[in-house]
């Protein structure tokens, strides 16, 4: 007899528990209106409709394909439309090994994105070079562009990619609308040489 068995107490599925309501931001509700901060509403709208730009280079790109497929659907989170034009996308998802020869290209793609923009580094190679500690691989994309969320894994499971995406959603939802004009943000971009 195995000491551990999977799912020995299965739960019956219950339709009333399966439907959840999102948490509303702080505000004053009323009869036909809801008063809250502009940044909360803007954040809520942005975080549930992020349009990602998949910069898929290698194996993590395949995991992203699995994440976008029907089993681990990423479009549940609002990113039904992935775009490949940086001008139209909010979230740059860098998935895969970036070689030193590719680094200026990645930087150009980031520069061409319009504010507000976020970057997620998926996988070990994008975060830190991964197992490829060699002369030709860039040891982490944060040497060329500022990164918001790192997803570790080699490759990360689709659930991990979705977890990273949800963390980006938290960042987007709570971001102050003055952040992109602040001194700190400008200093951050200057440290990367991006105006």
């Amino acid at each position: 007899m195995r000491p551990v068995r999977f799912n020995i107490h299965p739960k019956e599925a219950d339709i009333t528990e399966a439907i959840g309501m999102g948490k509303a931001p702080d505000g004053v509700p009323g009869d036909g209106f809801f008063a809250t901060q502009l940044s909360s509403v803007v954040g809520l709208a942005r975080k549930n409709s992020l349009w990602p730009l998949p910069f898929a280079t290698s194996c993590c790109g395949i995991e992203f394909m699995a994440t976008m497929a029907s089993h681990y659907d990423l479009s549940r989170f609002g990113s039904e439309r992935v775009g490949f034009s940086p001008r139209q996308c909010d979230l740059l998802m860098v998935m895969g090994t970036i070689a030193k020869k590719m680094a200026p290209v990645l930087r150009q793609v980031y520069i061409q994105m319009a504010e507000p923009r976020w970057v997620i580094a998926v996988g070990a190679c994008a975060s830190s070079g991964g197992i490829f500690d060699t002369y030709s691989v860039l040891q982490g994309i944060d040497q060329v562009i500022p990164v918001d969320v790192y997803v570790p894994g080699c490759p990360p499971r689709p659930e991990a990619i979705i977890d990273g995406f949800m963390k980006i959603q938290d960042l987007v939802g709570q971001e102050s609308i003055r952040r992109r004009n602040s001194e700190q943000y400008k200093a951050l971009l200057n440290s990367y040489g991006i105006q």
Partner: protein
Amino acid sequence: MSLNNEMIQEKLVAKFGDQASQFATSYGMLSFESPKEINLKVLQFLYDEPGLGFTFLTDICAVNYPDQKGAELVVVYHLHNLKENIRLRYSVSTPLENTDVYTATKLFESANWMERETYDFFGINFVGHPNLKRILNVDEMDYFPLRKEFPLEDQTRIDKDDEMFGRG
């Protein structure tokens, strides 16, 4: 009778005498070497000679033997006779101080990129190449990565734990 390794060896020795040397067979494939000055003559002979006909260049690569003083870098050509299905390995060696080797691009078009890659990783200067510049590495790189003296690892990392890598 169809071509085999002995016939190739006889023809090469008949034409080049003792300049074609170090004949060896590994896994059924004949390999030999010659001084680098006659590499184009040997390649042309292997291409044109009616009985030989090695008209397909499979690969050009190089090896770095740091212990063989005077012949540290060895350029290896892999040739293939498509009619008889016989492969051949031909190598020329060059010292580190003067790495000029005549280019095979006039004879084989595919040697163009293969010689660029060999230059990129080993620093062998192919004399007469139309466009000898780096092909796979960053253009500003000033060293030749696959030579044995250069480390594999990226030298800009400061967070590696020497204990875990056996250097502590």
